[in-house]
């Protein structure tokens, strides 16, 4: 094959400490590489990615006039950007680099076959050289970024992220499905380990959101669609009608008082009632009521209209329609949080949903909160009496191969906090905590655990019950084997609290699908790297905050929200996004206008435009993700993917197919 400019290839083989060199015979690979066509120099080094390693490459480019570089090391996902920058520093186009992955593809997977691993490494290097000879310089794609962000979900994660972005001077849209922001933290009475009142620390942040000039708060709203990519997303948001004119309503609450009808309260998890026109909770932000159309007598029968009659500012508007709002944003933060595992249908053995006096930990939060259905008196739902003997079961549905195989990460300390709620509200009550392992790992958590376990009326049993029973009088009982005392214990609690596992908010699946953002096997958002890039997603410009990424307590949630905001701020303040130019490109001379490519593109990046009485395909480079589907499908050979052109990958494949 003819090559335009005579290629001078440098091959650099990395030991990766011992990761590669303990299996692959690096010297043999180098020796072999130096015999390949157009290879000027082949070297090895313990850590190619280190500064001295990169300097070897840079020096060789300068002194030997190398114009193609092959690095045989780890996955390009790890260090391709590193070496591209090195090429740039040496004055070479960064896309004249090819990587051979001899760590993940050789030493790690063929640990026990060093001979074969070495042969495979040679093949991969030869293939990379074959491709590198044919590489062409490419230009990085640069586009302006919209200096505005979108935060989806208004729990403590979304609130913190929105405030951080707004405080750095950028505009933020905060979208929340519920009528108020606050999320699950607003449901908590106190927060471990310091036991601050949850509302007292959360409401000031919520009010700041409402008053911030840079935050556009859209509650009772849903994201309908998201198009585009990093720097330039177009988002359609549906604002559901509250049937209350928000600019006229003063939040006086007369409508709520006068409405004659009640239904179970979602905020109180069905434990209490709310009116049909209601505030989610007394500190709701925005402090505007919502009329629940499904249950409103006016909408059902045309009668009542009490709220309209009594509203002093004439804010009720039964004719309000859903409103669609379209916004352009440069960055998106996902903060959709969590819901509880459905123990009612999945774990009937614990009788949740069958016995009224079996409740979840989150329900106990509402029964303890001063704004809850019992006004802060802990009364068991069955008979509204104070419980005197409470059993708390940890790990319900969590760490369980038949249910959720991960740890909920706050159940243990929440359970310990719940024991505190009981004994501080009802001093003559006894609490038994059935645990498997106490995971009190956060700052100050061990102290808190020590404090509660030293109480006389709180007992810790190391064992998990199998079933909870109810006798014919409606009394609960169960057996649990206590490994600490080596005894089977019979408990007769009058209230059972289940610290249930948590799952991603059900709406997250759809958002992830729309954004093409990866989810883990557990359904939570998958971070780009579990250790080094915990707030980024597989989609550029989309960041993660809070439990959407996996269970975490408030301190971790807030820390991650700050980190996600910082990433978004960095992007917005750059004002420009760069992307790798491995995009599709049409040779319009060859294109027959057949249109095969257009429906194949998963990102709608291809349009067919009129030309010379016919039509030809055109690729919008900013939308193209470089998947290559169109290039493979094009019957005329008109579509190529830059950096993966036929004349580049065919020589590479030929090497692999023929062996050496």
């Amino acid at each position, binding site marked *: 094959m003819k090559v335009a400019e005579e290629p001078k290839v440098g091959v650099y083989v990395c030991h990766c400490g011992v990761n590669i060199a303990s299996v692959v015979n690096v010297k043999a690979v180098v020796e072999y590489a130096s015999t390949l066509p157009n290879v000027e120099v082949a070297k090895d080094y313990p850590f190619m990615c280190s500064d001295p390693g990169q300097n070897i490459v840079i020096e060789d480019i300068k002194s030997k006039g190398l114009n193609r570089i092959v690095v045989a090391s780890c996955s390009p996902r790890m260090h391709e950007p590193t070496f591209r920058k090195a090429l740039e520093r040496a004055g070479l186009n960064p896309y004249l680099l090819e990587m051979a992955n001899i760590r993940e593809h050789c030493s790690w997977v063929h640990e026990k076959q060093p001979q074969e691993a070495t042969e495979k490494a040679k093949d991969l290097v030869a293939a990379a050289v074959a491709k590198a000879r044919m590489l062409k310089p490419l230009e990085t794609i640069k586009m302006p970024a919209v200096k505005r962000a979108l935060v989806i979900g208004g729990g403590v994660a979304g609130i913190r992220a929105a405030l951080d972005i707004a405080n750095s001077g950028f505009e933020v849209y905060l979208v929340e499905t519920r009528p108020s922001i606050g999320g699950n933290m607003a449901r908590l009475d106190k927060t471990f380990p310091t036991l601050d009142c949850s509302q007292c620390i959360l409401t000031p942040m919520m009010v700041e959101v409402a008053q911030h000039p840079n935050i556009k708060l859209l509650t009772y709203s849903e994201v309908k669609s998201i198009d585009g990519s990093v720097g330039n997303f177009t988002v359609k948001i549906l604002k559901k009608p509250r049937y209350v004119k928000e600019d006229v309503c003063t939040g006086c609450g007369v409508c709520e008082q006068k409405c004659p009808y009640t239904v179970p309260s979602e905020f109180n998890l069905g434990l209490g009632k709310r009116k049909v026109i209601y505030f989610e909770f007394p500190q709701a932000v925005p402090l505007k009521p919502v009329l629940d159309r499904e249950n409103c007598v006016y909408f059902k029968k045309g009668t009542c209209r009490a709220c309209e009659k009594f509203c002093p500012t004439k804010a009720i508007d039964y004719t309000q329609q859903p409103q669609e709002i379209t916004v352009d944003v440069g960055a998106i933060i996902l903060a959709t949080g969590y819901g509880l595992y459905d123990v009612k249908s999945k774990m009937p053995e614990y009788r949740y949903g069958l016995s009224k006096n079996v409740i979840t930990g989150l329900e106990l939060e509402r029964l303890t909160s001063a704004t809850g259905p019992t006004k802060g008196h802990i009364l068991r739902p069955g008979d509204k009496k104070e419980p005197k003997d409470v059993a708390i079961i940890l790990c319900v549905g969590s760490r369980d*191969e038949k249910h959720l195989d991960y740890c909920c990460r706050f159940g243990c300390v929440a359970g310990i906090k719940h024991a505190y709620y009981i004994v501080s509200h009802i001093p003559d009550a006894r609490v038994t905590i059935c645990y498997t392992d106490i995971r009190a790992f956060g700052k100050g958590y061990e102290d808190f655990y020590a404090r509660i376990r030293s109480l006389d009326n709180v007992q810790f049993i190391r*064992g998990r019950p199998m079933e909870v029973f109810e006798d014919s009088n409606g009394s609960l009982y169960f*057996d649990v*084997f206590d490994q600490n005392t080596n005894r089977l214990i019979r408990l007769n609690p009058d209230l059972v609290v289940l610290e249930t596992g948590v799952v991603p908010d059900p709406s997250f699946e759809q958002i992830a699908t729309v954004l093409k953002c990866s989810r883990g096997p557990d359904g939570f958002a998958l971070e780009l790297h579990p250790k080094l890039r915990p707030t980024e997603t597989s989609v550029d410009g989309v960041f993660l905050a809070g439990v959407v990424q996996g269970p975490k307590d408030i301190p971790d949630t807030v820390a991650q929200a700050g980190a996600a905001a910082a990433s978004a701020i960095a992007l917005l303040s750059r004002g420009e996004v760069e992307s790798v130019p491995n995009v599709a490109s049409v040779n319009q001379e060859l294109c027959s206008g057949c249109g095969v490519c257009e429906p194949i593109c998963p990102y709608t990046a291809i349009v067919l435009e009129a030309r010379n009485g016919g039509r030809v395909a055109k690729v919008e480079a900013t939308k193209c993700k470089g998947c290559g589907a169109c290039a493979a499908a094009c019957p005329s050979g008109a579509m190529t993917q830059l950096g993966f052109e036929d004349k580049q990958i065919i020589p590479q494949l030929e090497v692999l197919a023929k062996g050496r």
Partner: protein
Amino acid sequence: MQTYAQTDILDAVRGVIGDHRPEACYQCMKCTSGCPAAKVSEYKPHMMVILTKAGLAEEVMKSGIIWACSMCLKCKEYCPQDVAPFDVVTALKNVAISKGYRPPEMLVGMSNNVLDYGCIMDKPMTITTTDFEEVSRKSLGLPDIVHPKDMEQFKKTVARFGFRRLS
């Protein structure tokens, strides 16, 4: 001082139980909390699993637990780690017999009754509850036990499964 060791018993157990690996057990006690046999036996299902894993299965085989298991399968149904102590017990029973251990006399009798009458006793009239009460089958509305019509054929059939008289 005792030490933990790998034994052929652990391998034999693994061979019998397939996917329900005893090594996954994290000692949550869920099996023991609900096990009807654990109420009467010194060795509990969770111990049986962990002792087998630690190479101390001989100790479990000598104990009564493997024969006390009432085969209710609750441990298998509820174990959060898919361990199935029941499968471990069953495997240990097989290993025990092959190593020449003899089950308790009552079980030997029951087993031989099956060969003689096609049932664990000649005329079972009662059922034992999880609280060890004897309740008549009639009071629960359960039908009488029907014996095999052709005992000779029955004996031939069970012999095919390797069911032999214990002497």
